[in-house]
C-alpha cells in the first residue's frame, strides 16, 4: 500500500476551471459563435437496412436559405485501405461509410446527406427536402440472429477472419478469435461443481448530456479549422485528414470544453461533414446533433449474447472456465469483444480456460466504446455464475473470490501475465467494509424483499502518447500546456503532479488544454489514461524545469552544483525558493520552458468491486437500490475527490445499465425510445449516496503510482445487483436490463 508522503498529491484543491463552469462562462462546443456561421443538419435513414436507389438534392439546393448540400459522393475518391485512427486497424471505407452512407444504409439514423443553411431551423427544413429513394431490406438486430444461416448480410464484402486467418465466406461475423490456456475439458472433468449459463444484454448508450457538436471553417489559406466536443483532438485531426485526403498539417482541431463522453466521443461523426459543408459554402458551419440523433446516429455500446461455464472443486478452487462472447458491433465491425475476452476471467487465477469471441455486425448504430468497453457485459455473466457456485458450495462469495483472486504473476488466457495488481486488496477491503456485514433492515412493505450482492470487475487501462509543456513565469506561477480533453477535473490532477515536483501549490499552476498545433501529439482521453499518462508527462516536464532552474541558479551563484528539495534551490549558503528563483531567471539566462513527451507504458490495470443492497417489490418487479459501496484500486489517488467522483459516476451508470437502460427496438429496427424520457437514465431520486473506498496499490512504473480509475468501476454493478436480486428473491437474473417486467418474469419462473 501507498506510504510516500507528498505536500500536494492526495489533497483536494479546487479545480482550475471551477469558476468558469459554475458561472456559465466555460465555452463548450455549441457555445462557439464565429461571424457568419452557417448551421448544418443531417438527413438520416428511416430504415434499419436499405439500398439507396437515388438521392435528389435539387429541391434542397434551390431553397433560398440553403448554402450547401453534401452526400457521400463529396468525399474524395481514394482507394480503401486500413487505417488506425486511435481505435485499432479499421478499413477507411467503413469509417467514411458511417459518416455518410454510400449505396446502403445499415441502421435507422444512418447519415445520408447534409445541408448548411442560415439558421438551424432552416437547415432542418431543407434537409427534409432531400428526396431519397430507398429499397428496404430485411434487418438483423441481435448477434445470434445475425450469425444464423441465411441471415441478411449487411456487407456483401465482409469476410470472416477465423483464428487470425482470412476465410472466403461472406458473413456478418467479422472476426472469430479463440484464447486458450491449459485444457478446459480436463479441468471440467476434475470439477466437483459446474455451472453453465446463458446471458443477454441490451444495447446501451453512454448518455453524455452534451450532444456531439462541431464547427468547421475551411479557411481561405487552405487550412481547415475545427472546434468540437471530442475526447481526442488528435484523433479528430487524423480522422478528418484521412477522410478528406488532406495532410494533417492542413487541419487544426481545437477541443472545446466537453460535456461528457465516456468513450462515445472517441469516434468522429460530424466534423468531416461540417468541413465538407464549409468547403462548399465558404463559411464556417456548425453541426450540433439533437438528442434523438445522438441516440440513433452516434455509437452506443454493444448488446451481447454470452455463455459462461465455470467449474470448481469442493474447496472452492476454480479449475476451468469457458466463455462464448458474441458482441454486436452495430453496422460496422469493431464490437470491443477482444477487451471483453481480456476481462471476462481476469479477476481469477484459473489454469484451464477457453474463450471464444465473435465480432458480429447488426443493423444498429455502429458501436463506440463505453467505459471499460466489453467488460461490463462479460462480468455480468462471470460474476453471477460465481455467485451461483458460491451458493452451491456454501461459501462466502467474497471468500470464493479471494481464494482464486489474480495476483502478480497470474496469467490470463490472452497470454498476458499480471504485474502488481490490487485484486486481492480490493476484495479484502470489500470483506472488511462495514457495509458487508451491516444488517439489511426490515423491508418497507409486505411485498418487498431485501438482499445484498457483491461482484468485482477489471479494466486493463491504456498508456499511449502524451505531451506537456511548462512555462515558468516571473512570479513563480507555471503555465501548463496539455492536449488531453478534461472531462472530470483532469487538468487539475495533472497540474498537481507537476506542482508536486516543483514544490508549488495547485493554485500556482495555470493549466490549459490546447489545439493540435500548440501541443505535441496526445492520445485520447480514454482508457483511463489521462491522469496516468498526461500526468506522467507533466511530471517529466517538471523534472525538465527543475534541471533548467538548477542551471540558472548555478550561474547566478557561480557554483557547480545546486540542490533542489521541498521547493527550495540551494548551494552552500545560497537558498532561493522556486518562486524567488523564477523572478531572477531573466538575470542569467533564457526563460525556463520545460517539455516532455512520453509514450506511457505500463498503465497497470484497475480492479473495482461493488457491494449493493436492494429491495425488490415482488408484486411489480421494481428494484430499488438501498445502499451502494464502490471499492477501487487507484494506485495512488492524486485528487481523491475526483477519484471518488469517477467511482460514484461509474457506479451509477452501472446501476442504470443494470435496471433501466436499453435500446428498445421494433422488429423493423426502429429505436422506440430515442429520448431521455424513454431512455431512462438514473436521476438523483433513483439512487442513494454512493460510498467509496479507495484502495492504493501503487502502480510500480508510474512516478506517483497512479492507475487510471475512469472505467473499472462500471464493470461490477450490474452483476452485483443481479446477485442482490437473487439474495432477495431467490431468482437468478440473466438478462440486462433487470427492469420490472424482466424481474417479474424471473420471479414467476423461478
Amino acid at each position, binding site marked *: 500500500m501507498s506510504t510516500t508522503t507528498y505536500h500536494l498529491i492526495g489533497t483536494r484543491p479546487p479545480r482550475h476551471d*471551477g469558476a468558469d463552469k459554475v458561472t456559465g462562462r466555460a465555452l*463548450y462546443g455549441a457555445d462557439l459563435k464565429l461571424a457568419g456561421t452557417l448551421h448544418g443538419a443531417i438527413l438520416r435513414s428511416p430504415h434499419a437496412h436499405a439500398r439507396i436507389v437515388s438521392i435528389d438534392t435539387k429541391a434542397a439546393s434551390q431553397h433560398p436559405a440553403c448554402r450547401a448540400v453534401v452526400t457521400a459522393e463529396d468525399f474524395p475518391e481514394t482507394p480503401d485501405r486500413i487505417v488506425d485512427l486511435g481505435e485499432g486497424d479499421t478499413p477507411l471505407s467503413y469509417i467514411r461509410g458511417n459518416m455518410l452512407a454510400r449505396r446502403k444504409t445499415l441502421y435507422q439514423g444512418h447519415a445520408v446527406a447534409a445541408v448548411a443553411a442560415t439558421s438551424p431551423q432552416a437547415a432542418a427544413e431543407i434537409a427534409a427536402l432531400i428526396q431519397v429513394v430507398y429499397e428496404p431490406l430485411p434487418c438483423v438486430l441481435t448477434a445470434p440472429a445475425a450469425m444464423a444461416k441465411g441471415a441478411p448480410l449487411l456487407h456483401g464484402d465482409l469476410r470472416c477472419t477465423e483464428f487470425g486467418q482470412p476465410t472466403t465466406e461472406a458473413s456478418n461475423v467479422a472476426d472469430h478469435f479463440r484464447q486458450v490456456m491449459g485444457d478446459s475439458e480436463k479441468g471440467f472433468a476434475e470439477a466437483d461443481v459446474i455451472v453453465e449459463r446463458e446471458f443477454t444484454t441490451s444495447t446501451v448508450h453512454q*448518455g453524455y448530456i452534451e450532444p456531439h457538436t462541431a464547427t468547421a471553417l475551411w479557411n481561405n489559406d487552405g487550412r481547415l479549422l475545427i472546434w468540437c466536443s471530442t475526447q481526442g483532438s488528435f484523433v479528430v485531426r487524423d480522422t478528418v485528414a484521412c477522410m478528406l485526403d488532406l495532410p494533417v498539417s492542413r487541419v487544426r482541431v481545437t477541443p472545446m470544453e466537453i460535456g461528457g463522453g465516456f468513450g462515445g466521443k472517441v469516434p468522429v461523426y460530424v466534423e468531416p461533414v461540417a468541413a465538407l459543408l464549409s468547403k462548399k459554402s465558404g463559411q464556417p458551419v456548425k453541426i450540433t446533433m439533437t438528442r434523438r440523433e445522438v441516440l440513433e446516429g452516434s455509437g452506443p455500446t454493444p448488446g451481447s449474447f454470452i455463455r459462461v461455464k465455470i467449474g470448481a472443486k469442493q474447496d472452492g478452487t476454480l479449475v476451468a472456465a469457458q466463455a462464448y462472447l458474441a458482441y454486436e458491433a452495430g453496422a460496422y465491425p469493431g464490437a470491443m469483444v477482444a477487451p471483453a475476452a481480456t476481462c471476462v476471467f481476469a479477476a481469477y487465477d484459473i489454469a484451464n480456460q477457453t474463450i471464444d469471441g465473435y465480432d458480429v455486425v447488426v443493423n444498429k448504430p455502429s458501436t463506440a466504446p463505453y467505459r471499460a468497453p466489453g467488460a461490463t457485459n462479460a462480468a455480468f455473466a462471470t460474476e453471477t455464475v460465481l455467485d451461483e457456485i458460491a451458493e452451491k458450495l456454501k461459501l462466502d462469495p467474497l471468500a470464493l473470490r479471494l481464494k482464486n483472486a489474480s495476483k502478480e504473476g497470474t496469467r490470463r488466457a490472452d497470454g498476458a501475465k499480471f504485474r502488481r495488481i490490487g485484486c486481492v486488496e480490493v476484495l479484502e477491503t470489500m470483506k472488511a467494509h462495514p457495509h458487508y456485514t451491516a444488517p439489511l433492515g426490515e423491508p418497507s412493505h409486505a411485498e418487498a424483499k431485501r438482499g445484498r450482492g457483491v461482484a468485482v470487475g477489471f479494466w486493463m487501462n491504456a498508456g499511449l502518447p502524451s505531451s506537456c509543456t511548462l512555462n515558468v513565469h516571473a512570479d513563480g506561477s507555471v503555465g501548463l500546456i496539455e492536449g488531453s480533453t478534461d472531462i472530470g477535473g483532469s487538468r487539475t490532477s495533472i497540474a498537481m503532479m507537476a506542482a508536486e515536483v516543483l514544490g508549488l501549490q495547485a493554485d500556482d499552476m495555470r493549466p490549459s488544454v490546447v489545439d493540435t498545433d500548440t501541443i505535441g501529439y496526445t492520445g485520447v482521453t480514454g482508457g483511463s489514461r489521462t491522469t496516468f499518462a498526461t500526468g506522467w508527462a507533466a511530471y517529466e516536464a517538471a523534472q525538465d524545469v527543475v534541471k533548467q532552474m538548477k542551471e540558472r541558479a548555478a550561474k547566478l551563484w557561480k557554483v557547480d552544483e545546486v540542490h533542489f528539495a521541498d521547493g527550495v534551490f540551494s548551494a552552500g549558503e545560497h537558498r532561493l525558493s522556486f518562486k524567488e528563483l523564477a523572478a531572477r531567471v531573466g538575470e542569467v539566462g533564457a526563460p525556463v520552458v520545460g517539455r516532455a513527451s512520453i509514450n506511457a507504458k505500463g498503465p497497470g490495470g484497475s480492479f473495482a468491486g461493488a457491494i449493493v443492497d436492494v429491495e425488490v417489490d415482488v408484486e411489480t418487479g421494481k428494484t430499488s437500490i438501498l445502499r451502494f459501496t464502490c471499492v477501487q484500486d487507484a494506485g495512488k489517488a492524486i485528487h481523491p*475527490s475526483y477519484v471518488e467522483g469517477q467511482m460514484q*459516476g461509474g457506479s451509477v451508470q452501472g446501476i442504470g445499465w443494470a435496471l433501466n437502460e436499453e435500446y428498445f427496438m421494433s422488429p423493423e429496427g426502429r429505436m422506440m425510445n430515442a429520448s431521455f424520457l424513454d431512455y431512462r437514465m438514473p*436521476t438523483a431520486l433513483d439512487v442513494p*449516496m454512493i460510498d467509496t473506498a479507495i484502495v492504493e496499490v501503487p502502480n510500480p512504473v508510474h512516478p506517483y503510482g497512479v492507475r487510471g480509475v475512469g472505467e473499472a468501476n462500471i464493470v461490477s454493478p450490474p452483476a452485483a445487483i443481479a446477485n442482490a436480486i437473487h439474495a432477495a428473491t431467490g431468482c437468478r437474473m440473466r438478462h440486462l436490463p433487470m427492469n420490472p417486467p424482466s424481474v417479474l418474469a424471473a420471479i414467476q419462473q423461478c
Partner: protein
Amino acid sequence: MKVHVQFTLNGEPAEFLAEPRQTLLECLRDNLNLTGTKEGCGDGNCGSCSVLLDGQLVTSCLVLGVETQGQRVDTVEGIAKGSTLHPIQKAFIDHAALQCGICTPGFLMATKALLDHEPNPTEPQIRLWLANNLCRCTGYDKIVRAVQAAAAEMRA
C-alpha cells in the same frame, strides 16, 4: 415577423427580437448570447437548460421566448454577486459536484429554486427537487452533499 420582447433578465431590464417559434433557450443563447444555459435534449427531459421564470424553475427549451414578455428570467449568469461566487456555486466547486460541467448550470438553478423555497431541505427533498436534472458524471452523491453544504452556509 419577429416579435419585440421586453423582460427582466438577471435583475436588469432587457429586450430582444424573437421569431415566434424560438424557445426561450434559443433566445437566451442565440439572440442574447448567454450561452451559460445549456441544451442537452431539447424536450424538457435533462434539465440542463433550467432557468427561473418569475422565480419558478422551468426548462427553457419548453418555454417560448415570446412568452417571457414582462416577466423575470434568472439564468446561471446572474447567480454570482459581481465577482463573488454565490454560496451554491462555491459549494459545487468545493465539493467536486461537477465533472464535465455541462449539467451544472441547470443544477445550480434547480438548487437555487429549492433553497429559495426551503432553506433547510432533507436529503429526499433535495433528490426530489433535482430529479428533473440529469447528471451522467457524478452519480449525484457530491451534488447532494454540495446542496446540503450550500444550504447550511446560507442559513448561517
